């Protein structure tokens, strides 16, 4: 009947068909007209209409209206985000806070260089809000929340960047908290990330501590030290009992790692012990929790708040005498303490106890079954991934590899009920509470602050497919790790004193103290010899200073000769300028320049009565400390002599630099003045 009405007559049929045709033809333009991006572009126009620079903004908008696309074939980027985010490049929209019209914050890259999804993820080609920002059935890459956006920098930049502290901290945590002991993370160049922590060997642990302490530590490492990086394995009482039984029975003695104290010696004065602890700058590396609960001190060595409850006094004494007997690779220097000093320090540290720690630990003698069960647990939990344990090999690939974790497909992830189905949320939840994904999982509970969890998540999210597949020319690699090793007797001495724990030489070593790569060009021999024997303070404002290692004359001489001979810069000859004999006129000219034109007294002290600058090293005796040629070249370009030096480059002309060098070389200081400071 309806058919008859519509198509009964040829003219009517023609009319109906035409109508249908025109409607179907109108669908495409109508879809276009009512599209979301057009809606936002219209909203943008009404937003800018009232502004002072409306004409300019409108003109720039109309140069590029319609759907916009950034196409970067080399990077695989097809981004249409700028169709709605119209104001990204408009600096004058700095006050606009509504999306999608905010201007983009200033970053080192431009939109046209890298597009949007490189950093923000999401679906670049999509033209609707839903499809671009959220995961759909077909596309599963949602937008990356702002809190993890620094991870994107890490896809190309392997070295730390000034503007990405969160990423840098996350990468540090990955190596410092031992993540990479169990999880392999390979870099695009094929090398694996190496851990920077040094978990102690347990081969001789019975010499060092008691079974009771191991039990308490296993149950809750942070109860012993709040800064402990060892995670909590949530062991049951019998499991902790059996592991401690196995570790103690499995330990082998090692000659010389315990020294009994002198029985007849009277108890050492705690105040003297404390002052020796201070003078030896133990706090540069070790922290102690004070009464207010604040952890004060460095984090290179373990926290010592309750060390007296942990280590045996005879072990502690031997360790302080020469730590390399127990652990040849330790970062702790060999201090060469005298016997009375050893007694003082052993007594002082031995008093740092906590009676609550072991009060409730009562262990019966271990049975063979318990020991066997302990060994099984140690293997199951992968303890040997971090610690050396007699008879147990370090397991390979103990935990899943994380090389491409940042691109893990959502379909491969089992989410917990109620969790947002997104990769960052999964990674963060997994770090926050690994066992919430199953009580049988082995991954232990780490003690991390929310900001640290976010930092770790950021570092892991940077390990994407894109990071691995980018053309190498587009990546910024980090400095390759240096395995520099000084040669001969001096090299052995430097290992013994753990110089590399604080100083870097040729790319290897810590950043707590100055880089010594060109030290031989910098300092004068007699000064260096005296300094090694008794390090004075060059920077009075610093809390962390070079400790005194009680070197013998021969050792100090050996080390001085090596440094003076080997660590010379090829940039200049250190003897090219005289150390004395500058004309008084030039010296006076230098003094004027020092105090007026260059105002060096802002940061340095030449005259201890008048000058107060406490940033740079004291220059009262710089004429007997540094070489003239070094001073001259330093003044010309400090960063060329020591990369990262904070002294500004003054673009000094040769004449000024020579006069200042002349003036500084007359600052020979006097012993009396030095002793006073």
């Amino acid at each position, binding site marked *: 009947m309806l058919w008859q009405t519509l198509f009964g007559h040829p003219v009517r049929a023609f009319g109906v068909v035409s109508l249908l045709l025109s409607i179907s033809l109108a669908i495409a333009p109508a879809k276009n007209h009512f599209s979301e991006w057009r809606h936002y572009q219209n909203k943008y126009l009404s937003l800018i209409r009232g502004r002072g620079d409306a004409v300019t903004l409108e003109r720039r908008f109309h140069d590029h209206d319609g759907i916009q696309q950034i196409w970067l074939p080399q990077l695989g980027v097809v981004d249409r985000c700028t169709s709605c985010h119209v104001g990204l490049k408009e*600096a*004058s929209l700095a006050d606009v806070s*509504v*999306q999608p019209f905010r201007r983009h914050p200033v970053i080192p890259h431009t939109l046209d260089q890298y597009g949007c999804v490189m950093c923000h993820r999401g679906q670049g080609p999509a033209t609707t809000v839903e499809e671009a920002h959220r995961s759909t059935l077909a596309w599963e890459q949602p937008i990356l929340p702002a809190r993890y956006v*620094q991870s994107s920098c890490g896809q190309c930049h392997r070295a730390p960047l*000034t*503007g990405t*502290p969160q990423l840098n901290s996350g990468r540090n945590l990955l190596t410092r908290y031992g993540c990479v002991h169990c999880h392999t993370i390979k870099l695009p160049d094929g090398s694996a990330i190496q851990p920077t922590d040094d978990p102690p060997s347990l081969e001789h642990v019975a010499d060092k501590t008691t079974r009771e302490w191991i039990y308490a530590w296993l149950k809750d490492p942070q109860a012993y030290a709040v800064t402990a990086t060892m995670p909590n394995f949530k062991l049951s009482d019998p499991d902790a009992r059996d592991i401690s039984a196995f570790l103690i029975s499995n330990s082998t003695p090692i000659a010389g790692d315990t020294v009994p104290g002198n029985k007849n010696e009277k108890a050492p004065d705690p105040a003297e012990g404390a002052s020796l602890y201070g003078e030896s700058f133990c706090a540069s590396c070790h922290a102690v929790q004070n009464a207010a609960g604040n952890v004060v001190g460095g984090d290179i060595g373990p926290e010592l708040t309750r060390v007296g409850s942990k280590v045996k006094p005879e072990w502690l004494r031997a360790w302080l005498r020469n730590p390399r007997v127990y652990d040849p690779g330790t970062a702790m220097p060999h201090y060469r303490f005298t016997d009375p000093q050893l007694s003082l320090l052993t007594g002082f540290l031995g008093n740092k106890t906590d009676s609550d720690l072991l009060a409730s630990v009562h262990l019966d003698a271990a049975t063979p079954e318990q020991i066997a069960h302990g060994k099984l647990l140690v293997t199951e939990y992968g303890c040997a991934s971090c610690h050396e344990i007699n008879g147990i090999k370090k397991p390979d690939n103990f935990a899943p590899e994380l090389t491409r974790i940042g691109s893990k497909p959502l379909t491969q992830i089992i989410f917990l009920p109620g969790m947002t189905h997104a990769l960052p949320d999964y990674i963060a939840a997994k770090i926050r509470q690994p066992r919430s994904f199953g009580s049988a999982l082995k991954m232990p509970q780490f003690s991390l602050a929310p900001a640290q969890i976010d930092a770790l998540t950021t570092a892991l999210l940077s390990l994407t497919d894109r990071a691995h597949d980018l053309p190498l020319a587009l990546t910024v690699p980090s400095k390759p790790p240096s395995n520099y090793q000084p040669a001969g007797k001096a090299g052995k001495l430097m290992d013994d004193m753990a110089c590399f724990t604080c100083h870097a030489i040729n790319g290897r070593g810590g950043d707590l103290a100055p880089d010594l790569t060109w030290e031989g060009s910098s300092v004068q021999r007699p000064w260096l010899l005296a300094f090694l024997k008794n390090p004075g303070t060059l920077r009075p404002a610093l809390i962390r200073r070079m400790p005194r290692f009680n070197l013998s004359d021969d050792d100090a001489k050996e080390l001085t000769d090596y440094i003076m001979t080997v660590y010379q810069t090829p940039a200049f000859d250190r003897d090219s300028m005289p150390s004395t004999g500058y004309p008084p006129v030039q010296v006076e000219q230098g003094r004027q320049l020092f105090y007026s034109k260059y105002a060096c007294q802002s940061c340095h002290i030449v005259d201890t009565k008048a000058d107060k600058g406490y940033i740079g090293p004291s220059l009262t005796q710089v004429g007997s400390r540094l070489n003239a040629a070094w001073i001259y070249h330093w003044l010309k370009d400090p960063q060329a002599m020591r990369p990262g030096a904070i002294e500004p480059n003054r673009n000094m002309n040769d004449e000024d630099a020579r006069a200042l060098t002349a003036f500084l070389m007359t600052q020979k200081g006097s012993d009396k003045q030095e002793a006073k400071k």
Partner: protein
Amino acid sequence: MTGHGRTLFVLCLILGSAGCTHKSGPASALKPTGFGAALVESSGGKQIGATGTVLAQPLVVQVNDEQGNAVAGALVEFSGPAGVSFDPQGGVTDSSGQLSTNVTLGSMAFRYQLTARTSTKAQKPVDLKIEEIALGYQQMVGFQLDNKYCGRCHNPESSAERVSNFDNLEVKPHPFTEGETLNKMTDADLTAIISHGGPALNKSALMPPYGYTLTKTEIEALIAYIRLVSDPPPHVSGTVYAQK
């Protein structure tokens, strides 16, 4: 195209990427067992963090009674501008009268004014204003440079790691938070004094030039940072540089 409703919803989703602050927190279900008269900041205010990230230290506030004694069991709720989120959003104070929350900053580089609120027995609200600063990439670079070079003299506060040189200088430098002075200086002035030192603006030579040490981009970053942390904030819309 269901029109504005859906669009607004999606907009809201994007804006409050870390969650809208309007939703009722778990705190509303909690019953206070104590009431205080004053709310004080214990720690965690005036922190500096990157946009969109959680602050390194938790924000801790304390509820006190009229005598200044800590009150346990008092209800405290936190609120802030859109984009800021709190974990937890609120709760009751512990035995030492304190409540701690982790603050996630919004995605705009901005000085965020947060509010902690508790109420007295008479249901009168007591508010505490707290400020946290979020830095974008550029300001973050400036912040790091300030830490390395400038803060040694321009920041009068000493830390455990670094003793301030502020008091040792005959002519006192202006702290970067000193909006009164710094807002009067244009970006060009600041660039000049950073690049060429104090004498460029007839000021003390104790301020050395950094034009040969820092790049142009770094100096711009430093100025962006100074503009963000200065108190009171400057009355300009955005960095003048970016117009070029």
